[in-house]
């Protein structure tokens, strides 16, 4: 879009061009500022703060939920992990069973499929000539 020269008839053409250029310039300006060590340091501190806050919040909520006898996130996660383990074992058992694809999804297997005989356009035009 930015490559298009606006037709002279477009009264907003100059404004659009200015917008494109401003976007590029400001992004470059910010990228330069964000590419410094100082910025990475500040960002690292902010991320540490965010993580610490998440940890404290999580612990507080967990303590509160336990006190009112309601399952916490870690309780649910524990159940979810056990379900996943059961699911994995089922998959591995299913994998060992000699069940062909047709038996797993008979309707899909019975549906007609197009022949795998397609040739690329170059071969098709070559064959026709």
């Amino acid at each position: 879009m930015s490559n298009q020269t606006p037709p002279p008839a477009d009264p907003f053409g100059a404004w659009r061009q200015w917008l494109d250029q401003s976007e590029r310039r400001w992004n470059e300006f910010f990228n330069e500022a964000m590419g410094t060590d100082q910025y990475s340091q500040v960002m690292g501190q902010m991320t540490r703060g965010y993580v610490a806050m998440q940890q404290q919040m999580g612990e507080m909520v967990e303590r509160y939920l336990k006190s009112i006898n309601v399952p916490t996130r870690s309780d649910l996660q524990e159940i979810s992990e056990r379900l996943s383990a059961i699911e994995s074992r089922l998959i591995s058992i299913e994998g060992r069973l000699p069940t062909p694809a047709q038996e797993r999804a008979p309707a899909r297997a019975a549906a007609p499929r197009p022949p795998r005989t397609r040739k690329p356009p170059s071969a098709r035009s070559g064959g026709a000539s």
Partner: protein
Amino acid sequence: MSSPAAAPPPIEQRVREVVERTIQRNVKGLEYLGSSGPPVGLTPKDEIYARGTLRLYHYRPIADEIYRVPLLLVMSLVSKAYILDLAPGQSFVEYMLRQGYDVYMIDWGVPRPEDKVLRLEDYTLDFIPDCVQRVVEDSGESDFSLFGYCMGGLLALIYAALNTDGPLKNLVCLTTPVNYQGMGLFRQWSDKRYFDVDRIVDTLGNIPPDLLYASFEAMRPVSRVVSQIRLWDNMWNDEFVRSYRVFDRWANDQIPFPGEAFRQTTKELMWENKLYKNQLEIGGRRVDLKQITAPMVHVMAEHDHIVPFEAAKDLTNLVGSEDKQDIILKGGHVSLVAGPNAVRRMWPALDAWLSERSL
């Protein structure tokens, strides 16, 4: 450049056009605010395998005759798979079906809290080989083409390097980072002196999507506001608005990054650049890209701000394939794979390369 023959329309016509667009902007702007998000991922498909959050889909063929070799798409771990199937007319999957490919897709789904333990080993030595076996079985063919976008390309590469006697026929990588020295701001922000990845993963488990979204947005801090101004400017244009909405939905629809895979990516790739240095070990085996001998193409975008050209450009030199090619196109990380630029540039270029090798 504009032709000198194209004379500007008369002043009254220009005024009428400006007034009409202004009215349309207001009318359609209200409609926009009141309507729900656009549907995505509509191309008909069957789920042929499910495992945890992983889904293996087979898209129903559209063409009367298809290429012999099936095509398996692998998505990145950080974004949703429907970028490859946005909407009718804007769907890479739909395009490939129309061109006669038999398309499968691995959709990793949205990681659950317990998925924080998943490592690159799980994806490349277990999940992908498992799905490949099912694709081979379902298609009845002995080989397949593998397509990976962004980090999906990285997973595809590792799979290909560690399964050299497998059924891989062709490897297609899109904007795949290989030299993490070139990862620009991401590398700078994850500097090991300031970025405590262990504490983040140990505390949070999976990396929350808002943290990832914030870092993606920070790469182009002004673009969000400018894109909304452009939306207002083009509110009269239904096609523009439709396209904007599907992209906006995808960009805002981030998913958590599995914790251990994030730790591994940060330490071994971002910090140590081990894949590039031929030192990366997965499951105790070295990922030597020279072991990849299947025909390979790497499609890159000139103005990619997520995976800069510098980070991607050396990939083809590192793989051992004799038949290998770089395709460098105009555009950015997302416009390479979806949107009007992709329809005109990437999709036909990829079809031209793959069709010759899918017999």
